[in-house]
Each structure stands twice: as structure tokens, then as C-alpha cells.
């Protein structure tokens, strides 16, 4: 009971906000009026009844509520043919199946749905629209409710079913259209509801059913409610959020409730649902009835997000009971996992792999004229742009003589390259130059890079376990990470914290990695240099940035040398000057490309690097001007003739005592940092040192420790803070 109180007490702060909002938006005002009332009830004293409702429902009044709710949910058949039989039939066998299949086919892809609706959007009024409405929504009421709350509530996403935020912009535009349309239509369902109510009351039905239905209706019209109706109202109100949904999903045995929540899941923000992924997956594996309900939701999310797919697959793998018995029928969880891993669940509209091979040459062939022909031509011109050229120069050449796929082979440098050619295509280059992001259209395996990346990281640990000495392990670890680096940057990320910061892994600095002192389970700790981006699956992979390109000033050096040698020796030093001309890629350009996607490149001591070199350059200039002033063209070392000069000049005096004191001070100031490196425990010094350094590093340490914990279980159970929360939650569920 207290447990339920938690979310509610959190929600009590919300009503004022919502009130304001609802008053401001007049159109949605009426529908919203109910919410505060419910909320008032839930705020204090009426809480116990709510939970008692659930208890009761599970014990005694199962049938009633089920029916009532279901009948509410299944308006469509009723409107279509207002005979009672139709309501009756779904009740006999669980009503889930039909609605499920419906939602699978139609709600599965929001794009199609909205297209369908858009087509009917032209003639807004009239019978067709109503029909359309009926066909689309198996449960129109909640959906519309959700939509209308939407105008006011902050949390829920904008459509009943389409809960993604990764939709292309055009679809969003359509969404708003359909939203207006829904607002227009807002009254209609209500009307139909009331009419349905009338028919129900007029007809002679089993008393319980009616009893259960009638109060609900009346409650909806503003009257006081009994138990089941309040449950529905709870479901429909704004404050019914993810945590509560999870709770009911877990507790409720009612098929209707489950299917309702199953549909409702689409309305919750994905982030909120991701939090409960563990629970969802566990329920999916162990509770068949819940599984059926949430299956469409999972599939949709998997289609939308690579990351979600992977998390799902890993969790399914981790939580699935080991199938010791070789049963012919695979468990549901395994089936879904295999489906995800085999990349069957992918965004609709992306071309399967076979077609790509045919498409690719077309992309390359600039002569063919199709609808994107104009784009191609623009691109052709724009290759002269620096960014384009730079990218070209950095593209790895096709390997010599090998046409086979190198995915997974770390020595090729393309281990995490799924062969997606979208960004190679002219359209891809264009979008990149424009700065937009694009999703993969070519149908390359979506999950492969990330899977391979994880496999590589885990196998590094496994191989380390085989090395006997600590020193050997350290060296080996660095070697492994360097090999890994050859394949980065790629479209891979760390699966922990990906919700907090979306990123791509750019590099794994090997020198920062250490072998941990634990036995053989969690052998290493690594840092990752990441690039924060908006969406890992859409952005272009950043250009590789070699460590020296940030610091490199060699071309400048050469310039100076060249000038020097020209001025002093008199012969044109052809080689260095020529090198300068042919070294157009400046660090600044590198940085520009890296920083393209409003992002942060996390090289830890960037500033140091610059200042150092700047220092050097300025010194070189100093020397050069010096030598020119004195007109000394010989090859006497700079140092020595400077020290001749010091004879003439007044020498700067220093006190030996001061030097000694400064030495002592500076060493003392280092004090705690002077943690000696112990070959037996290489991680100790690193952990020690880093804990005192700045916050960013701390963050990474935190991350890596998690990863490291996470490696303990090759089954990919995430030991992030999520789990700790999750643990609490499960206590609360219990």
C-alpha cells in the first residue's frame, strides 16, 4: 500500500500545472475536467479504496470487471452492429487475441497508420471518417483520451500509438494534422459512448455486467464511481504513468486490463519504459498472458531503435531460463531474441540486403536520372567542398584483393562496419554536408556492429585471463585495445548509460586501461573516448582523428626549418617546403569535422596539448628572429652561441636554496598523487590518481567500473545503477 503511495505522492505536485494548462487550452478542457477530480480523490484518503479495488478484482469480481472493461474497450463491434452477441463472443474466449492481431498489423507501424489516416484526412467530416476511426483503433477511447491529454500533459507523447521521438519530421507534421483532426472528432466517440451506454441500459443483460458498466458511465459523466470504473478512470487519467502501468501489468490477471495496458504502453515516453525493461522482459518470459499483450509494443520499439533491440535481446538472453531440456518448442523469449538477433525486426521500408547489391551500383552511377537525380548533381559539385574532400581522403581503401566481409575481424580495421553504404551514396554525402542526419536505407544488418563490438570487448577479457603474469596481462591488454582502436570510430556505443548520453565510441585509449586486481572474472578497466550525438543510428560516423593531428605542428616546424635553411644556407630545401604545401589537412579542420554534430570530443588534455606546442612554436619564432638578428648563418648550435652571449649580458641569478625549496614544495604538492605504480596491482594507482582528478574522468571511471562489473557476467546483465533501482522496485513489487 505504501508502495503505491509513492508514485501518487509524487504526482500530487502535478495537478496545478495541469490545471493551468488545461485552462489555457480550451479545446481539451472538457475532457480534462475529470482528471483533477480523480486526483483529488487519489491524493489523500481515497487511496486505500484504489488498491483495494485491485485486490478485490483479483479475488472476487474478476468477471465483472473484465467484462465491463472489455466492453468499453471494444466499442467498435458494438457500434458496427449494436447487437449484444458480438460483445458476448469475445468474452467467452479471452478477448485478447483478436485485438492483439489487430494491433499487430495496424498499430505495428505508426507510419502506415498515419498515412492511412492522412488519406482520410482530406474530407474531415462525414461517415467515412468515423469508419476510419473505427477501423484504426481497436480501443478508440483511450487513444483519443491520450491524445487529448496530450495537449496538456507533459509526459505522454503525442500519439496514442506512435510513441517514438525518432520519427522523421514529415511524419510529425502529419501527426499534428491528425491530432487536430482528433480534436475535431473528440465529441464523436463520446457520443457513441453514450449511445452505447443507452443501448446497454436498454437491453437486458446479466445484472453484474450492467452494474459494472453503468456506474462507470455515470462516473464518467461526473458522478461518483464504484470500484471497476475507478480503475478505468485511473487508467485513463493523466497520472496513470509507466510505473503504475508496470504495476498493473504485473498484478492484474485480467485479460482486458492487460490488453488495455498493453495498448497504453505505446503512449508512455520510451525513456520511462526503458527504465522498466528488466521487468518487462522478465514478465515477457515468465508470464505468457502479459507477453502476448506487450509483444506488439516490444516489436515496435525494436523496429524503431537498434539500442532497444540489443537491450531486449541481451536481457532476454540473460533472463531466459537455461533450456536444459531440449524441447522442440522454443520458449517465447528465445523466439523473440532470435528474431531480434537475426535482424528480422527492422524498420519497415528498409530494403532487405539482397536488393542493396543491385541498388548500390545505381547509386554510384551518376548518369541515371531518377527523382534524386538533382540531388546527385548537387552533390557532385559539392565534393569540391573541403569537408567532402577530407572525408574522402580518410575513407579506407577497399582491401586489396579481398571481397569478403571483414565484420568481426579486428585486424582489418573494419570489424564493426556493417557495410552500410548509405553515407557513401551521393545522397548521404549531401545530407552530411548539409548537416542533417540520415537513417540507413540500404538494409545492412543493423545490430551487427554493436554485437561485434561487445563480443570484441568481452573476448579481450577472456583472452587476458589466459595470460599468466600481471605485466604480461597489462601489455596484452594494451595490444588488444590498440587492435580494437584500429576499428574505431564505428557505429558502436557503450550499452550502459546510453540513455543518459547518446554517443559513439571514438577510441579506447590503451594507455589508460589497466588490468584489475581481481581474479579472472573482471580482468580490466578501460576508458572510452566518446562523441556525444543525438542518435547513434542516424548520425554519420566521425572521421578518424589520430592523436597527433590534434597536436601536430610538424608542418609548421618544417616551414620554419625551410625558411631557416633558405636564409642561412642559401640552398632551397626542397623537401620540407614541399611537404608543407602538400599537407593541407590542418588540425583545425580535423576538429571541425569532429565537432560537427553539436558534440563534444572528449580528449582529456586537449588544452595542454595545444599550449605545449604553442609554447614551442613561439620559442622557435624567438630563436629564428634571434638568429636573423645576429645574422649567424653557420651551423653552430643555437644553444652554444647563446651561452657565449651570456658572457656579455648580465646573468640572471638564482639561489640554489630557492631551487631546492621549490623542488620540495612541488613534490609535496604532488603528495597524494604520488601513488607508486605497483606492477602487482596496476589498477590501484590509476584508480587512486583518477579519483582525484576532474569530474569528467570520474564519470568515465564510474562508467567503466560498471562495464567491468558487467563483464563479470557474460550474459550481459547490466550492473548499472539501473539495476540497483530495479532491485528496489522488485522489493516493492514483492
Amino acid at each position, binding site marked *: 500500500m505504501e508502495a503505491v503511495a509513492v508514485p501518487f505522492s509524487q504526482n500530487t505536485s502535478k495537478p496545478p500545472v495541469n490545471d493551468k494548462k488545461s485552462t489555457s487550452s480550451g479545446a481539451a478542457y472538457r475532457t480534462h475536467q475529470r482528471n483533477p477530480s480523480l486526483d483529488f480523490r487519489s491524493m489523500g484518503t481515497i487511496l486505500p479504496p484504489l488498491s483495494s479495488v485491485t485486490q478485490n478484482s483479483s479475488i472476487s469480481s474478476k468477471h465483472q470487471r473484465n467484462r465491463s472493461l472489455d466492453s468499453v474497450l471494444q466499442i467498435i463491434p458494438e457500434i458496427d452492429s449494436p447487437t449484444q452477441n458480438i460483445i458476448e463472443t469475445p468474452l467467452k474466449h479471452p478477448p485478447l487475441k483478436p485485438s492483439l492481431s489487430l494491433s499487430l498489423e495496424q498499430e505495428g507501424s505508426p507510419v502506415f497508420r498515419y498515412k492511412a489516416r492522412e488519406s482520410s484526412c482530406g474530407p474531415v467530416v462525414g461517415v467515412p471518417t468515423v469508419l476510419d476511426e473505427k477501423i484504426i483503433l481497436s480501443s478508440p477511447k483511450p487513444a483519443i483520451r491520450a491524445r487529448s491529454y496530450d495537449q496538456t500533459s507533459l509526459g505522454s507523447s503525442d500519439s496514442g500509438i506512435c510513441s517514438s521521438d525518432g520519427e522523421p519530421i514529415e511524419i510529425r507534421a502529419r501527426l499534428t494534422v491528425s491530432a487536430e483532426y482528433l480534436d475535431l472528432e473528440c465529441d464523436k466517440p463520446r457520443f457513441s459512448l453514450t449511445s452505447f451506454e443507452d443501448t446497454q441500459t436498454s437491453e437486458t443483460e446479466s445484472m453484474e455486467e450492467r452494474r459494472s458498466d453503468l456506474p462507470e458511465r455515470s462516473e464518467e459523466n461526473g458522478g461518483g464511481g464504484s470500484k471497476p470504473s475507478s480503475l478505468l478512470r485511473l487508467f485513463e487519467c493523466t497520472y496513470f504513468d509507466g510505473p503504475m502501468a508496470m504495476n498493473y501489468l504485473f498484478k492484474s490477471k485480467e485479460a482486458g486490463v492487460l490488453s488495455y495496458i498493453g495498448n497504453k504502453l505505446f503512449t508512455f515516453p520510451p525513456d520511462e519504459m526503458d527504465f522498466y525493461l528488466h521487468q518487462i522482459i522478465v514478465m515477457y518470459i515468465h508470464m505468457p498472458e502479459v507477453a502476448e499483450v506487450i509483444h506488439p509494443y516490444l516489436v515496435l520499439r525494436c523496429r524503431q531503435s537498434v539500442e532497444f533491440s540489443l537491450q531486449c535481446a541481451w536481457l532476454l538472453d540473460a533472463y531466459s531460463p537455461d533450456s536444459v531440456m531440449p524441447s522442440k518448442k522454443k520458449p517465447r523469449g528465445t523466439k523473440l531474441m532470435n528474431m531480434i538477433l537475426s535482424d528480422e525486426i527492422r524498420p519497415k521500408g528498409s530494403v532487405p540486403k539482397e536488393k542493396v547489391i543491385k541498388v548500390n551500383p545505381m547509386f554510384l552511377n551518376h548518369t541515371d536520372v531518377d527523382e534524386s537525380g538533382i540531388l546527385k548533381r548537387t552533390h557532385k559539385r559539392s565534393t569540391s567542398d573541403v569537408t567532402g574532400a577530407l572525408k574522402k581522403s580518410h575513407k579506407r581503401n577497399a582491401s*586489396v584483393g579481398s571481397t569478403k566481409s571483414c565484420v568481426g575481424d579486428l585486424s582489418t580495421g573494419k570489424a564493426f562496419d556493417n557495410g552500410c553504404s548509405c553515407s557513401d551514396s551521393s545522397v548521404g554525402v549531401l545530407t552530411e554536408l548539409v548537416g542533417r542526419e540520415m537513417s540507413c536505407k540500404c538494409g545492412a544488418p543493423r545490430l551487427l556492429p554493436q554485437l561485434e563490438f561487445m563480443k570484441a570487448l568481452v573476448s579481450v577479457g577472456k583472452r587476458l585471463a589466459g595470460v599468466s603474469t600481471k605485466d604480461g596481462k597489462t*601489455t596484452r591488454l594494451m595490444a588488444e585495445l590498440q587492435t580494437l582502436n584500429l576499428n574505431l570510430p564505428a557505429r558502436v556505443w557503450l550499452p550502459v548509460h546510453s540513455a543518459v548520453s547518446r554517443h559513439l565510441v571514438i577510441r579506447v585509449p590503451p594507455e589508460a586501461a589497466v588490468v584489475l586486481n581481481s581474479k579472472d572474472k573482471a580482468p580490466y578497466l578501460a576508458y572510452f573516448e566518446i562523441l556525444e550525438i543525438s542518435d547513434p543510428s542516424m548520425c554519420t560516423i566521425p572521421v578518424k582523428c589520430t592523436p597527433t*593531428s590534434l597536436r601536430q605542428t*610538424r608542418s609548421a616546424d618544417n616551414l620554419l626549418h625551410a625558411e631557416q635553411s633558405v636564409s642561412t644556407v642559401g640552398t632551397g630545401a*626542397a623537401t620540407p617546403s614541399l611537404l608543407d604545401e602538400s599537407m593541407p589537412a590542418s588540425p583545425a579542420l580535423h576538429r571541425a569535422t569532429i565537432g560537427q554534430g553539436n558534440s563534444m570530443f572528449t580528449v582529456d588534455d586537449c588544452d595542454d596539448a595545444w599550449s605545449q606546442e604553442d609554447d614551442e612554436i613561439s620559442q622557435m619564432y624567438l630563436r629564428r628572429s634571434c638568429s636573423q638578428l645576429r645574422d649567424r648563418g653557420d651551423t653552430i648550435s643555437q644553444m652554444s652561441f647563446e651561452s*657565449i652571449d651570456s658572457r656579455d649580458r648580465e646573468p640572471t641569478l638564482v639561489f640554489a636554496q630557492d631551487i631546492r625549496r621549490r623542488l620540495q614544495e*612541488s*613534490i609535496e604538492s604532488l603528495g597524494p598523487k604520488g601513488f607508486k605504480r605497483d606492477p602487482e596491482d596496476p589498477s590501484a594507482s590509476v584508480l587512486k590518481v583518477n579519483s582525484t582528478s576532474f569530474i569528467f574522468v570520474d564519470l568515465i571511471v564510474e562508467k567503466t567500473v560498471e562495464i567491468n562489473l558487467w563483464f563479470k557476467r557474460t550474459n550481459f546483465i547490466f550492473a548499472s545503477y539501473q539495476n540497483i533501482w530495479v532491485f528496489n522496485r522488485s522489493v516493492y513489487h514483492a
Partner: protein
Amino acid sequence: MSKRHPSGTIKKAFKEKVVAIYETIFRGEDPSAGNPNFWDEFFLLKPKVSCFEVELLKLSADQLEANKININLLFTKCLEMLKAEQNIKIVYALQTMGALTRILYQKHCADPNFDLIGVLVGSNDVDRTMEDLIKSLSELICADFPCITKKLVLKFLLVIVTGFENISSNVLLDHFMINSMFDPLIQLLSLPESRSQFGRDVVLLNTLLITYKKQEAANPYLVKLSLVDDELVLHGYAQVISSGLQEFCRKYIVVKQQEPQNSWLSSITSMVGNMFVSEEAHNKMEKLKANDSLLLALYEAVHSSRNFVTVFAYIQPHERPPQPPSDEEIEADHQDDSIGAPATPTPTVENVTHSSSLLATLLEYCSVIMQDVKHDVSLTSTKLSFIVLTVVTEDNYANSLMHDPNLVFQVQIHKAVMRHRKIGGDPVVPARPIVSALLDLVIEFIVTHLLKKFPVDLYELALGIIVRLICYQKRCKVRINYQWRDLWHALFSLLKFLQSAEGQLLKKLNIFPVAQQAINIFNLFITYGDTFLSVESLYDDLYYEIIRNKSVFDNIYSMVLRYSSSEGDNKEYSLRLMTSLNNIRSIIGHFTPKVDTWLATQSLSTPTEAQILEVVRNGYESLTLKLVDNLDQFQRYTETPNHNAFFAAFISISPDLNSRGELNSNSSRNLSAPV
């Protein structure tokens, strides 16, 4: 056309059809007369390279000139065959072409007036033909051809490139500059399989091509090398060099282990038997030859490439070195190819037992080659590796790698057996940052090369490396955990040696700059010690050592006084050295009386180190030092004015690069391998 005899009744030597055709060609007759498919058939016959060469060698230069048309024709047909579809034709054409080119080069070497290009390629349309040739060869390298073909292409290229004693006078190479083969060549390095097979050849070829007229004009290979930023290629390049050097070190260890561990006996025998070059030394020399090219390749990469430093710390998995496959292997290879099976298996990561980075390997290699103090060749190699280290220590990124406390390696610095040192085998070194190993290496060099034939340029380089390291540490406030005392002791012995051998040495060379460098290192410690020493007591130790070795400085000072007061070439140098000595002299002047009075008060004659240190610690006040200007500056390494001569000499004397004969015999053996 030879007649077929029953095998038992051969009277005269059995003559194969191919050989007969060779004779026809070299007689100047048109071999294709009456047979339009002649050339297609000819290249289906297995060439007999040895016969071909013998026949060709028989002809004098004039005869060859006269027979120009046929030779041109042969060359052109070979070229055409490179585009053939059947691999066998390509292989045979490459073999024939290689043999032809090689012999003509030999002729040219014997008689510089011999018109090589005219005879080989023809006088008209040379440019186009060569362009065609280079294009075909590039395609053969890049495309999916069997290993044997690629190998032959590389061998053929080596024949061309090494045709002349002085690479810069090799006229054919001009065409290779115009039509660059850099990209196809270098791409072979990116994949492990092709790297292990062709890596050595590719790196050697590339290095040779880089050295072609690089002083005079822009060398496209050098330019391209400097721009390579494909990490895989750089990695491959480093890997080839490192595995070559590693192989050398491994062989050295094997040789050393086989040596009987007889300490004094061996030193006596070596004294006695030094007039003969021992078998072992000879053996080592042989191996040295094989690595100069790698060292030069490393130099070019480090010096010119902006990105090469990044791969320095790459830990190279200990692969099998890319040995040129023996003939049998080639044969096996080819049989495999003809069957259609893939080539040799790649070294798997699982096999990696010991790994090391290129830099660590280089240091170990250095420690081996510098042990040989008797041969100029090894001194040259040492100089080259010191130049590489100089360039490396100038690079900030490389320095940061070397100083990284987490990037540790076990670098074995091999030490020569010397009479004044205990021999106890090489102790097991702990893994530590590379900078420690580098300092050890330089110190080892300093104490072991105080020879009558004083290698002053090497010492300048060695001390320069130390200066660069200390400057980096000072600039970046890096405090490494190192026994600096070892360095001071080495410098003391160097100064002692210079002062004692001054009379002899100054006749031949100027020792003042070296002495000055050594003193300046002390000055760095004295005036900037606060920025890079890791423990405060080290500063006391420094003073202690200076006071203890005051006689060294006194002697140097008196030597300097002598030369500065007398007019001569050395006056300026000695005056400069005198200025540098200022601080050390004031330290000695400051502390000596203090120590003496302290000893007097304690009435001690033999104080302990701790006691003197205590005196030092309490006696800093009122000691003023002069800050020497630009002490922490050094002249950056430039190849152009100072080292041109060295590199020119290096290329011509370097046994590896100069070993045309060996290489050619190698290649010819490969070329003549039964295919």
C-alpha cells in the same frame, strides 16, 4: 628447333624448345615468323632463366645494340602478357622480363656507355611504355592475383631499383617518380596476410624509391609517405620494421646463449684472436646487413611522416617475421594457387606469446648493434638509430608516450661483456616506461664507447637525446622515477676520458662541444632540477656527486683555461665551455670549505655519504647560481644541411642497400623457381 632424341642416346646437350627460341631471338631472327600465335605459345613455355641469362651474357654490348629490335620486341611482348588472363603467362612474362632487365643492368654496370633504355625498352615512346609497365604492375599488385605473381612483381621491381650502384643515377626510376606506385605498394601493408608475405619487400622498395634523388627534387614517395594517415598502413609499416628488428634480437640472444659462459677465458681469447674476425662476429655482420634497410625505412617514416609517431607505442603482436618464403614454399604456394586454395594461414592472435612495441624493439636492437665497436658499419648503423631516436625525442607525442607511466615495457638492454664489469647474464628487467630504457641505453653507450677512435658525432647525438628528454620533462613537469645517479656517473667518466685523452683527441677532432653538452646537462639539473626531479633528495645527491667529483671539473677547467688563454681554433669553444662551468665551479667553491670545516669540527677523515649529504642540505643558503640562457633549447634535427653527406654515404655503403648481387641472386633464384 631441337630434335627429340631418345633419352639414352643424347650426344650433345639436350636442348629445350625454350632455349632454342632464346637463341633464335638473340640471333636476331624473327621468332614469330610463320606462326601468328607464337608469343602466346612462347609464354606458355616454362622459362629457363639460367639459360636465358647465359645466352644473354654471351652477347657483347655491341651485339646487344645490334639486336635491339628483338630485345625490344621481347620486352614489349612480356609487357603485353602482363595483361593476359592466364596467370601462368603473367608469371612467365615476369620471369623473363626480370632476367632480361637484370642482365642488361649488369651490362650497363660493366660498361656505362651501354644504352640500357634503348636496348631494353626501345628509343621511341619510352615514356608511354614505362607508364604502361608501371600501370600493369600496379594492377597486378592491387588486384586479386595469386601470391606468386605479386611476389614476382616485387622482385622485378627490386631488380629495377637496385640495378645501379648509386640509386640516384638509375635513369629508369625517373618513370617511377612520374607514375607513382606508392599507393598500390603501401596498401599491401594494411592486411596481415599480405603484410607478412610482402612486407619486407614493400618497405625495402619504398625506402629505395624514397632515396632516389631526394636531395635534389621532390620525391613523390617521400611526400606520400609523409601524408599517409591510414592507421592500418602505418601499423603495417611499423610492424614490418619491428618484426625485422625483433627477429634480429632473437637471433642475437640465441647466439649469445650458445656462447660458452667463460668469462675471463673468452676475454683473453678475444684479445688474442681479435686479429681474425671471428665466425660469430661475421655471422652477426651478416644479420646486420639485413636490417639497415629497415632502420633507414624507420628513419624515413619517423622523419617525414606526420602520423607515424602514433604507431610507435603500438604493441606489435609477436608475429612470425615476414621471411621471404623459400623456394619450396613458393612452389607449394603456387601449387596451392593452381588448385585454387587460399594462401598461407594468417598468424592468429592466439599465438601471440610475447609482444613489444616498435620503440621498445628499436632500443633493444640498438643495444645489440652498438656492442660492436670495431666495425665502422655498426657505428654507422648506431648513428642512424641515434638519429632516429633524436627525431623521436623531439616529438612531443612520442615523448608523452615514452613518459607514460602506464605504458610499460620490458626492454632488455643488452650489455657487452667487458673486462671491468661483472658478467652475470642480463638481469630480468621490470616493465617500465620506455624513457627509462632509453636513458639506460644512452648511458650504456656513453660508458662503453670511450675509445681511442672516439666517435664524437655519436656522442653528440647521444647527449643530444638526453638533453631533449630532460627538456621535455622540464617543460611538461614530468617527474620520472629514475636513477639519475647513473647518468651523472656516465657523464663524469666521459669528462674524465675527454680530459685525459685530450691531447690525442684534439689532433683529430673537436671535443669541446661534447664536453659542453655534458656540462650543460649538469647545468640543467642544477638550475631546473626543481621542475623534473622526482624526489627532493635527488637534488642533494647531485650536489654530493659534484662535490665528490670535483677533481674532474677542476681538471676540465684547467684544460679550458689552457686553451682559452692560447690563441687557436679552440679558443672560442673553450671560452664557451668555461662559461658553462660557472655554476659547477661556484657549487664546488661554496661547499668545499663547508665540508672541510665540518670535517675539522667533527675531526673526521672519512665521512659517510649521509654525513656529507647533511652538510649539503644545510648549506644551500647564500649559494647563488647563474641562470644560463637557452639552456633548455636545442637545435632541432634537420637532415638537409648536416646529415646529407651521412645519408648519401649510408645508402652507398650500407651493405643491405648495396647488396645488389645478393639481392639479385635471391630474386633470380625466386624468378627461376619452378613454376
